[in-house]
Each structure stands twice: as C-alpha cells, then as structure tokens.
C-alpha cells in the first residue's frame, strides 16, 4: 500500500505509533510507581500513628 511513497507514509505512521507508545507507557509506569510509593508511605504513617 502507498506505492512509491510507502516508506514515507509508513515511516510517518510508525513515528506516530512510537510517540503514542512512549507517552502511554511512560504515563502508566509513572502512575503505578507513584501510587505504590504513596500507598507504602501512607501505610507506614498509619502504623506509626497506631503505635
């Protein structure tokens, strides 16, 4: 598909796919790390206040 311009057309779609993949992965990896860190600290703070 895309004939003699295939390398440019699919190159552009590939570049867009890479940009989206990076944005989605980076967003969710950071989100999970922040949620776990907060849960751990909140847990520690709760157990400290209980004692």
């Amino acid at each position: 598909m895309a004939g003699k311009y295939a390398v440019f057309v699919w190159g552009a779609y590939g570049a867009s796919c890479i940009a989206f993949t990076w944005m989605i992965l980076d967003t969710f990896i950071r989100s999970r790390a922040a949620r776990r860190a907060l849960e751990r600290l909140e847990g520690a703070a709760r157990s400290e206040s209980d004692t």
Partner: protein
Amino acid sequence: MITVLANPHRFMAFSRWAAPILGVAAAGLIAWGLALGLAVPPDYQQGDTVRIMFVHVPAAWTAMLAYACLGGASFVSLVFRHAVADAAARAAAPLGAAFTAAALVTGSLWGKPMWGTWWAWGDSRLVSVLVLFLLFLGYLALRASIEDEAKAARAAEILALVGLVNLPVIKFSVDWWNTLHQGESIFRAGGPLIAPVYLWPLFLMGAGYSAAFGALLLVRTRTEIRRRRAVGLALRAAA
C-alpha cells in the same frame, strides 16, 4: 470549573472517571480516523503522501493545544497559586514535547517526497514549531535543574508564559512570511480548501489526538499530585 478542580480531592474524584472516558473516546476516534484515512483515494497532486497529513496535522494541532494548556496552567499557578494547575503544567510538558516531535518527524517525512528536502531553515512555520519543541524541553530542563521545587516551578512558569507568544507566530507564520509550507487550508475565511473526503479523517484524528492528550494529561496530573503527597509524607516521617 477551574476553581472547582483547583481542589486536589475534587480533581482526583473528577479525573478518576473522566480519564478513562477520554481514553476510550480517543481510541475509538483514532481507529475510525485511521480506517477512513487509509481508505481515501490518493490525492491528484500528492499521491499517497496525503495520508501523512492524517497523523502530521493532528500532532501539530495537539502540540499547540498542549502548549496552550501549559501556558494557561502556568498562568493560573503563578497568579492564583493553585497546586493542581502547577501539577497540570508539569504533566502537559512531556506530552507536548512528544506531540511536537511527532509533528516535526512526520512533517519531514512528508516534505522529502513533496518538497525535495527533509528540512528548510528558512521556513518560518518549520522553525517556529522547532522553537515550540525547544520551549517544551526548556520547561522540563528548568524544572529538573533547580532543586527547590517552588523556585523551579516559578522559573518554568515564567518561561512558559513568555513562550505563549510563539503560538500566534506558528499559526500566522504562513500568512506573515513566504514559506515553503503551504498556507492556511482548513481554518480560513471562505471555508477549507481540502476536499471533504480528506477532511473527515483529519477531523476524526484531530479529535482523537486531543482526547488522548486530555486522558494522558489527567493521568499524569494525578500522578504528580500523588508524588507530592508522597514527598510530603516522606518529609514528615523524616522530621
């Protein structure tokens, strides 16, 4: 709306359901736009490279939207000291940089077969979009290089506000100067110059990219709010 969402708890409650809705809408719109974009007939002048427009133009629109959000959030943070606005500004910058990079790369991949060159330093549209990319990187670098988070935020917010002047330059560069880049062909008096068969996939992709930016912005802002809570708790535990 801004006042309501300035409260971190209300923002977390709002974004909890708004982010997935925007994400699903983005996936649907982009899938629909891609299906239409890959099915359109080749353009009589550009041939199949017209399909690059369906990923290049939405990326450029969303890059400008991201900078408008960065500038707006920076203004609200600087003037009203809203912590959520600062978190949103910080969340918008890497997304804006990614969309701008995508616009630059896909534009270059269209330029080579159509203009005969990957890049033209004398073209004001190309250079002003490159400046937009550097503004995003500058914002991120400034925030990362100053240890005091409050001082880093103030400095980066001022840079973001100064950079807002670049948005009208990008928009009107094709009218103000002679450029290799084609003139305004969509949002212009007298209607779009592009055939409707190409406009539909373009608008669907534009809406999909914007929704994707919105969804990712909300998730990243939530992450930033959580990170700040974690830093606060860690400091309290260490004290």
